[in-house]
């Protein structure tokens, strides 16, 4: 189901959570709402779900204005960061909740619950209580519960935010596969740019209640329209108006045109990647991202004086955003 958000504004007292937001989500797509806390991403998700009423503007689903339709009738599945498991019910009753409300026959409910638990790999936990499950299992149960009512839209609010790194990564991969299987229009909220790039087809970057930019992960990374997107999507070094990705910093042992002198403060080996922390003669600290091989060939050492220059940089000034590339010297 396609979703269109038209000039939605939402205030909480004096705080403007959403400021004239416009958004389009294609049918069957997987979209991430990305932004720092307080950027309005969760509020936008809740407005789409019907858990929050916008002050002005409309939400349109499949061409129908649903702004005044209550959450019960929107056909959305919603998952919360802290799972919102029904603590007093077994996993079976949690997943069956929406179906029981729809008064489906018992046998059908049982069959559907078992199918869904298989889908989320919780077959053996059907008679457990949420208190007996791990965080990752609880979130999978919450997903099965949301999917049980065959929602036309799946909305996930920081679904992996409360989980540890390894489980988070597993669930990300699993969510992508799930989306490939069920093809339900999915929007999830995250503050983790890596998670957004990893999972989503479309990323919507939000800041201070506004959408900064929306597009495919690669497009945002390569062609950010604003400083905010540049610095929020992917790591970045800042040189005045110029922004340089750490992998676009070239390190050499001899001075070159456009290179600045810097001392190596620290070298961090992260397996394949090597991080070089640099302290320039003037200006803020920088860091460069090299492969292990590059670092070895350059024979870098701490306290060494080197010359760094941005091979590719982004400039955001009054002339608008643009990319400047240096020719290999």
């Amino acid at each position: 189901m396609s979703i269109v958000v038209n000039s939605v504004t939402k205030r909480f007292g004096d705080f403007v959570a959403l400021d004239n937001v416009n958004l389009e989500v294609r049918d069957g797509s997987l979209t991430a709402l990305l932004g720092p806390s307080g950027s309005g991403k969760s509020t936008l998700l809740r407005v789409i779900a019907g858990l929050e009423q916008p002050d002005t503007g409309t939400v349109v689903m499949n061409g129908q204005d649903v702004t005044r339709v209550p959450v019960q009738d929107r056909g959305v599945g919603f998952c919360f960061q802290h799972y919102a498991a029904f603590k007093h019910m077994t996993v079976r009753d949690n997943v069956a909740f929406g179906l029981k409300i729809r008064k489906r026959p018992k046998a059908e409910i049982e069959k559907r619950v078992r199918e869904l638990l298989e889908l989320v790999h919780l077959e053996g936990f059907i008679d457990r209580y949420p208190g007996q499950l791990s965080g990752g299992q609880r979130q999978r149960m919450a997903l099965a519960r949301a999917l049980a009512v065959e929602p036309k839209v799946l909305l996930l609010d920081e679904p992996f935010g409360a989980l540890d790194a390894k489980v988070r990564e597993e669930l990300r991969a699993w969510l992508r596969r799930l989306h490939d299987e069920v093809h339900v229009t999915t929007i999830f909220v995250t503050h983790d740019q890596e998670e957004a790039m990893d999972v989503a087809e479309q990323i919507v970057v939000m800041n201070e209640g506004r959408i900064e930019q929306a597009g495919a992960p690669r497009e945002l990374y390569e062609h950010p329209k604003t400083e905010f997107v540049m610095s929020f999507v992917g790591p970045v070094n800042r040189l005045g108006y110029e922004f340089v990705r750490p992998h676009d910093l070239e390190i050499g042992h001899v001075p070159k045109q456009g290179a600045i002198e810097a001392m190596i403060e620290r070298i961090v080996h992260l397996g394949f990647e090597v991080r070089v922390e640099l302290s320039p003669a003037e200006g803020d600290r920088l860091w460069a991202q090299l492969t292990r091989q590059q670092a070895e060939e350059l024979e870098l050492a701490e306290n060494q004086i080197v010359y760094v220059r941005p091979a590719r940089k982004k400039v955001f000034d009054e002339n608008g955003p643009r990319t400047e590339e240096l020719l290999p010297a």
Partner: protein
Amino acid sequence: MSSVGHIEAPPKRVHMPRFGGAALSRGFVITYLSVLVLIPIAALAVRSTEDGWDGFWTAVSHPMAVDAIILTILASLAVVVINAVMGTLLAWVLVRDDFPGKGILNSLIDLPFALPTIVAGLVLMALYGETGVLGIEGISFTIAGVILALLFVTLPFVIRAVQPTLMELDLEMEEAAASLGARPFTIVRRIILPNLAPAILAGSALAFARAVGEFGAVALISGNIPGKTQVAALFIYSRIESGDMSGATAVSVVLLAISVSILFGFHMINRWSTRHGR
């Protein structure tokens, strides 16, 4: 393991002797409870059977005693039911609603606790008595008056038990239920009430125990009419006044047994309903 054989085995963990802190504090707690609660209760039980079991049975089965005990139990049950409903509603309003004067209302809830119960009785008389401000007939010297007095003194129990649970209740649980299609009434019935049940039960148990033993608040408004509005506690007092100690202690033991079994019963229900360690 042989390759690390040269490393000395870590010293065995030294166990703290069991006596000392733990045993001492446990002993203290048990002694304190014994002196304060258990020994007096035992003395009461012994005293009640001084005239033998026959004497105990005669005292307890006296029609006035039976009437007083039945009235006490029924009135207390009625009070518990009303408290469970109204207390939960009041707690709901105090937690979920926002209105001017909420803080004052909240502190007012504890007034029946703070007031000496005989003063509470006087208050009720001043309002509902035959010469009272309202002058409503049919309350003073009736069972309705007894229930009213008991409601007054047991007001805070359920409210104060439910309030913290309600405050901690996960709002997202309700939103999740709504997103699955549950209407407000269904959310209350299937999500909120089951989560509040242990707290409602706990508050009700305390309210019941308190109602069974209430003396001061009912003394005036009930009129203390034997066989009609005389509650057990007042019956016991009247026995003592007429020098019938074994009659007084016998009924006291029955009251005690009722309170203990009710508290125990609620405790068991509570354990059963929270058996999943949530």
